[in-house]
C-alpha cells in the first residue's frame, strides 16, 4: 500500500475519533491549543505564529492566513466576527464535509483561537444546507463545547467570551466568495461587492470580519501545538503544510487524500490514486473545479502548490481533482463547466453574466458539429475579456476551463470544427452508428428497440441504420449481443 506519501494534519482525527464525543477529541490534544493561547499567549503572539507558519487560505485564493488575521486585529471596532466558510460549492470537492463530519471540534477550537487573537466574541459557520450530517454533528459539537465551558462566557476562566452559531447556505456557488457569503448571511441575495474595503475592515454587519475556509481552520490547532517551524518545514518554499484533495473521476482509488505541498500530480494520481480505471489511458486532470483548468500528461510532474498550478493555467481551488480518461471529450468538459458558471453567475456584472453565456453558446455550437475555425479565436478573445473585467473570483476564473483546454487540447477542438469528429465519441452530433455486416446475424433485436425506426432488415438478413433517421440514442448497442454495432 502506497499511503506513505500522505501526511495528515487537517484530517488528523478524521477516521480515528468518534466525532460525536468531545471526550474523544480532548483525549487527542483537543482544545489544548486553545488552552495554550488563552493561558500563555497574547493576541499578537498567536498571529505571529500563524504568520511564521506560512499557512495560506485553503479555500482556493491562497491568501496568507496570518496576514488576514493581523489586518482584522488592527481595526478598532465594538464587535468583530469570525466566519467559517463551509459552503463547499465546488463540484467534486468534499474535504470540508469530511472534516466537519469527522472532526467538528477542530473547527470550533480554531475559530475560538481566531476570535481571541483578533478580538471577536462571535463566530458563524456558513454551511451548505445540502450537508445534513455535517450540520447535525456541528450542532452536537457546539452544544458539547458550551456545556464543557470551551465556548460561551469566560472560557476556561480566562475572561474571554466566544460563541458560535450556524447559518445556512441555500445552494449558490458564488457564496463561496467572501463578500457574497456575507451578503447571504445578512439575508440578501448572494452578490459580491467591490473590494476594497475588504471584509477584514468592513464585513458582516459592517464590522471587521475574518472569513476562512474549513480546511484552513483545521490546520490552526496543530500549528499552535507543534509550532510554526515544524509546520513550515513541510511543503515548498511558497506553499507550506499539506493540502487535502478529493480525488475523483476515472481513478482507481477515489477518495480523500492529504499530501504535502509540492507532491506531484503523478504521485497523486498514480501512487496514491492507483492509476486509471479499466486500464484506460490518462487524458487530463481537472483541478480547482469550475475555476480551474485541465492539465495533461505533460504536466504530471508539476509539483502541486499555489504558484505552479497557476502557471500551468489551472489553480489550487478548494482541492477537487477530477481525473479524466480517453473517453472524455475535452470540449464537452469545458462546456460542462461553462454551463455550471452560467447557471451560478449571480448576474451582477456584465462580463460574467453575458460573457460566460456567449462562451457556452459557442461551445455548444462546436459540440453540435456547427463550429467554425474562427470560433476558436472568439473563444479565446472572449475568455480573456471575462477574466480581466469580471467583478469577483467567479468570473475572473470561469474561463479557465476553456482556456486550458484550448491550449492543451487544441487538436481536439480543431477536430470538432474542421473534421467534424469527436475522438472520444461523446458528442452525439459528431458520431455515426453503423452495423458491421459480418457480425450481424439478423436477430432483429436492434430493429425492435430503435425508437426512431431507423433500422431496416429482414429476419436472418443483414440490417442497416439509416443515418438520416438515427437519433444516436444508443439503444441498439445495448441490445445487440454480437458486437455488430459500432460508433464512429
Amino acid at each position, binding site marked *: 500500500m502506497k499511503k506513505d506519501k500522505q501526511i495528515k494534519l487537517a484530517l488528523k482525527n478524521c477516521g480515528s475519533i468518534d466525532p460525536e464525543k468531545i471526550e474523544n477529541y480532548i483525549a487527542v490534544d483537543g482544545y489544548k491549543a486553545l488552552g495554550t493561547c488563552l493561558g500563555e499567549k497574547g493576541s499578537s503572539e498567536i498571529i505571529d505564529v500563524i504568520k511564521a507558519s506560512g499557512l495560506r487560505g485553503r479555500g482556493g485564493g491562497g491568501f496568507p492566513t496570518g496576514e488576514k488575521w493581523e489586518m482584522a486585529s488592527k481595526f478598532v471596532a465594538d464587535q468583530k466576527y469570525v466566519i467559517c466558510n463551509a459552503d463547499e460549492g465546488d463540484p467534486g470537492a468534499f474535504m470540508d464535509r469530511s472534516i466537519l463530519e469527522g472532526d467538528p471540534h477542530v473547527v470550533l477550537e480554531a475559530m475560538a483561537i481566531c476570535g481571541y487573537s483578533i478580538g471577536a466574541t462571535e463566530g458563524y459557520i456558513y454551511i451548505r444546507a*445540502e450537508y445534513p450530517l455535517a450540520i447535525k454533528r456541528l450542532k452536537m459539537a457546539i452544544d458539547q463545547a458550551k456545556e464543557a465551558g470551551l465556548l460561551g462566557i469566560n472560557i476556561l476562566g480566562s475572561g474571554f467570551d466566544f460563541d458560535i452559531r450556524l447559518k445556512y447556505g441555500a445552494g449558490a456557488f458564488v457564496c463561496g466568495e467572501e463578500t457574497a457569503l456575507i451578503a447571504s448571511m445578512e439575508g440578501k441575495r448572494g452578490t459580491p461587492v467591490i473590494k476594497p474595503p475588504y471584509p477584514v475592515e468592513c464585513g458582516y454587519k459592517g464590522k471587521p470580519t475574518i472569513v476562512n475556509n474549513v480546511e484552513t481552520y483545521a490546520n490552526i490547532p496543530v500549528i499552535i501545538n507543534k509550532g510554526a517551524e515544524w509546520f513550515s518545514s513541510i511543503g515548498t518554499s511558497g506553499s507550506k503544510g499539506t493540502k487535502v484533495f478529493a480525488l475523483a473521476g476515472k481513478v482507481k482509488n477515489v477518495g480523500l487524500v492529504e499530501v504535502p505541498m509540492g507532491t506531484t500530480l503523478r504521485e497523486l494520481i498514480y501512487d496514491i490514486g492507483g492509476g486509471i480505471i479499466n486500464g484506460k489511458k490518462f487524458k487530463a486532470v481537472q483541478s480547482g473545479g469550475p475555476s480551474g483548468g485541465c492539465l495533461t500528461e505533460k504536466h504530471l510532474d508539476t509539483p502541486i502548490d499555489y504558484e505552479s498550478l497557476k502557471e500551468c493555467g489551472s489553480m489550487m481551488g478548494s482541492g477537487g481533482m477530477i481525473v479524466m480518461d480517453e473517453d472524455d471529450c475535452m470540449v464537452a468538459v469545458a462546456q460542462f*463547466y461553462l454551463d455550471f458558471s452560467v447557471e451560478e453567475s449571480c448576474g451582477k456584472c456584465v462580463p460574467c453574466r453575458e460573457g460566460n453565456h456567449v462562451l457556452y453558446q459557442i461551445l455548444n455550437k462546436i459540440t453540435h458539429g456547427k463550429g467554425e475555425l474562427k470560433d476558436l479565436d472568439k473563444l479565446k478573445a472572449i475568455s480573456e475579456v471575462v477574466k480581466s473585467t469580471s467583478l469577483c473570483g467567479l468570473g475572473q476564473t470561469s474561463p479557465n476551463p476553456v482556456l486550458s483546454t484550448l491550449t492543451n487540447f487544441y487538436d481536439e477542438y480543431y477536430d470538432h470544427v474542421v473534421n467534424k469528429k469527436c475522438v472520444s465519441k461523446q458528442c452525439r452530433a459528431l458520431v455515426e452508428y453503423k452495423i458491421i455486416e459480418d457480425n450481424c446475424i439478423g436477430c432483429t433485436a436492434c430493429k425492435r428497440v430503435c425508437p426512431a425506426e431507423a433500422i431496416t432488415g429482414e429476419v436472418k438478413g443483414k440490417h442497416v441504420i439509416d443515418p438520416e433517421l438515427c437519433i444516436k440514442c444508443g439503444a441498439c448497442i445495448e441490445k445487440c449481443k454480437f458486437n455488430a454495432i459500432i460508433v464512429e
Partner: protein
Amino acid sequence: MTCNKNKNMINKLTDICNEFNNDPDDLIGILHKAQGEFGYLPKEVQIIIAELIKIPSSKIYGVVTFYSYFTMKAKGKYPISVCMGTACYVKGAEKVLKEFEDKLKIKNGETTPDGKFSMSSLRCVGACGLAPVVSIGEKIYGSVKVEEVEKILSEY
C-alpha cells in the same frame, strides 16, 4: 385556499419568524424552516413572511429565486435528485438522469401527475466517491447504473 388553511399557515410562519426574532438578517434561515414545513415557498408564504419581518415581499422573492435550494413549485412525495457534479458527470450521470426522465415520463424540474415523484438535478452532494449519485428523499444511492433505475423506482 380556505381561510382556515391560511390561518394555520400564518400561525406556523409566525412561530418560525419568532424563533429568529423576526430578524431580516436570518431570512435564509426562516425560508429554510418554512420550506421544511410546507415543502415549497409559494407566493402566499413569501407575502406573510414579508409582513412578519417587515421587509418588502419583492426582496423575499429576489432571495427565493436567487438560491437554487428554494423552490416555488410543490415537489413530489419522493423528490428525486440526480447529482450533476463533475465527478458524477464524468461517470455518466447524464444518462442516469435521462433514464429517470424516460421511466417517469417527466422532464427534469417536473413532478409526476400523481404527485408521487419529482425530478431535479443538483450540484454535488459531496459523495463523489460514489458517483454517480442519486438521492430520493433522505436516501442516497451510489454508483447508480442506468439498468438499476427501474428497480430503484420500484422501491417506492
